[in-house]
């Protein structure tokens, strides 16, 4: 970085833990270090703190505390939900349904089950990234045991019709899992109202620590364990609990949930300003995803004639942290499967940039991005053989 400025615009990748969260955690690393499974006083302090956190998480999604199980993050929650329910209901059938725009924690888990003999149907999305509801209805067979559709997409931010999907699944008595990792505390969620049976969440997406998450499991849902061993989490998820992480997660979810009513309109305002300014100041750009049904903090633009990763590097040199595709897949060379699923051609999919806003984001930050971005795009376009070909063709056409 050749600047001291730091504008973090990658809140969908991860968020900084709140000071209150860190303060809440430290005692459970230090003096309240007891193993919650033990019998003595110092252990029951840890146990109690964990149960408080469980109630805090439950409150936010309107479940009961006994339906919340702590995991090591969103990925484990997704793996558990999908593998656990697929195997537990194998006698009923081996057909599973998901969408084409899920996070890799979901799609790769389904690939794994496919290798093990399960049958999959991928439901397409429209050009704005919204899942086709009637395609779900059509896909369901008597063999279907699970539908897994995310609440909100990590790349393009589209918010899915979870309640409507839940209603379909409830009617057909099929388990409904939603990966709500990007949604929790960013949009309102209610497992009762939405008929959700399994819901994944991850603390580091709402100003909590990394490496801790939860799976909501509706009472009576048939699901196998995923981590086998000790009797923790009422015998459903073995392993000594990450007590400090759990306490931090409880604190983080409560504060983020309290702030949500003010945070949503603030982020929407900044988001829409940024989208408008990029479109106005840089030619050949388009918004990916749905203009309204999108996460309050998500801006995902296609910028023609450039490649996203080099733009992210140039932004970094200017002190702006952004991403292209999802953080998890950015080590790979394939373009994002989500951008392809909404119909982008490969070359356009390579030229996407994602800014995701958060609580600390100010209008000044946004203005800085708007000021810096056009010059960087121009620099890359000047380098680009595709852009110079395009300009030559345009000149001829004039």
């Amino acid at each position: 970085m050749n600047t001291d400025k730091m504008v973090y615009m990658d809140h969908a990748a991860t968020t900084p833990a709140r000071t209150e969260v860190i303060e809440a955690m430290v005692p459970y690393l230090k003096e309240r270090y007891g193993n919650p499974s033990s019998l003595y006083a110092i252990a029951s302090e840890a146990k109690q703190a964990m149960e408080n956190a469980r109630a805090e998480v439950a409150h936010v999604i309107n479940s009961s505390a006994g339906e919340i199980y702590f995991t090591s993050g969103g990925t484990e929650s997704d793996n558990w939900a999908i593998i656990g329910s697929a195997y537990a209901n194998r006698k009923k059938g081996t057909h599973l349904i998901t969408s084409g725009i899920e996070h890799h924690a979901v799609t790769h888990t389904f690939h794994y089950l496919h290798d093990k003999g399960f049958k999959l149907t991928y439901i397409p999305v429209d050009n704005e990234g919204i899942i086709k509801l009637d395609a779900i209805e059509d896909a369901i067979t008597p063999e279907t045991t699970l539908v897994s559709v995310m609440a909100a997409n990590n790349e393009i931010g589209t918010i899915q019709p979870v309640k409507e999907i839940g209603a379909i699944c409830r009617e057909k008595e099929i388990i409904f899992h939603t990966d709500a990792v990007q949604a929790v505390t960013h949009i309102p969620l209610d497992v009762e109202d939405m008929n959700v049976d399994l819901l994944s969440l991850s603390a580091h997406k709402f100003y909590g620590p990394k490496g801790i998450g939860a799976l909501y499991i509706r009472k009576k849902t048939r699901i196998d364990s995923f981590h086998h061993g000790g009797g923790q989490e009422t015998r459903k998820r073995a392993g000594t609990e990450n007590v400090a992480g759990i306490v931090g997660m409880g604190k983080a979810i409560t504060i983020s949930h309290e702030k949500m009513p003010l945070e949503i309109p603030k982020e929407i305002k900044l988001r829409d300003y940024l989208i408008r300014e990029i479109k106005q100041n840089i030619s050949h750009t388009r918004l990916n995803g749905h203009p309204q049904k999108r996460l309050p903090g998500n801006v995902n633009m296609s910028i023609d004639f450039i490649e996203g990763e080099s733009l992210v590097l140039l932004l970094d040199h200017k002190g702006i942290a952004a991403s292209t595709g999802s953080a998890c897949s950015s080590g790979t060379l394939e373009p994002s499967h989500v951008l392809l699923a909404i119909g982008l051609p490969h070359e356009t999919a390579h030229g996407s940039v994602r800014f995701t806003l958060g609580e600390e984001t100010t209008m000044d930050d946004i203005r800085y991005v708007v000021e810096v971005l056009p010059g960087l795009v121009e620099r890359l376009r000047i380098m680009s053989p595709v852009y110079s070909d395009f300009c030559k063709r345009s000149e001829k056409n004039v």
Partner: protein
Amino acid sequence: MNPRNMGEIPDADGIGEVGNPTCGDIMKISLKIEDERITDVKFQTLGCGAAIASSSMVTELVKGKTLEEAWKVSNKNVADALEGLPPVKMHCSLLAEEGVHKAINDYRIKHDLPPWEEKK
């Protein structure tokens, strides 16, 4: 990211364009050649940071060299000159090597010389 030799040579003697938009990287190398020696070289690249850095580096490495010397500049030379590339980015340096090879052969074909063979 301050690449050198960026641009196009208007009356280039050899041009090599490699990669394709589907895979995300396109690289175009243009050469000015006098007496079998590269007197000027420029690149244009659509691609990630490593692709841009590799193309810039390969132009630095071949400039002033004879065509025979330039042909021997390998992707490993490019990566080494960049002080290493992560494994997932090695294909970028390969693209740079191929771009130069293609530009040299473009020149040779134009001058009715048999193209040199890529080693496998």
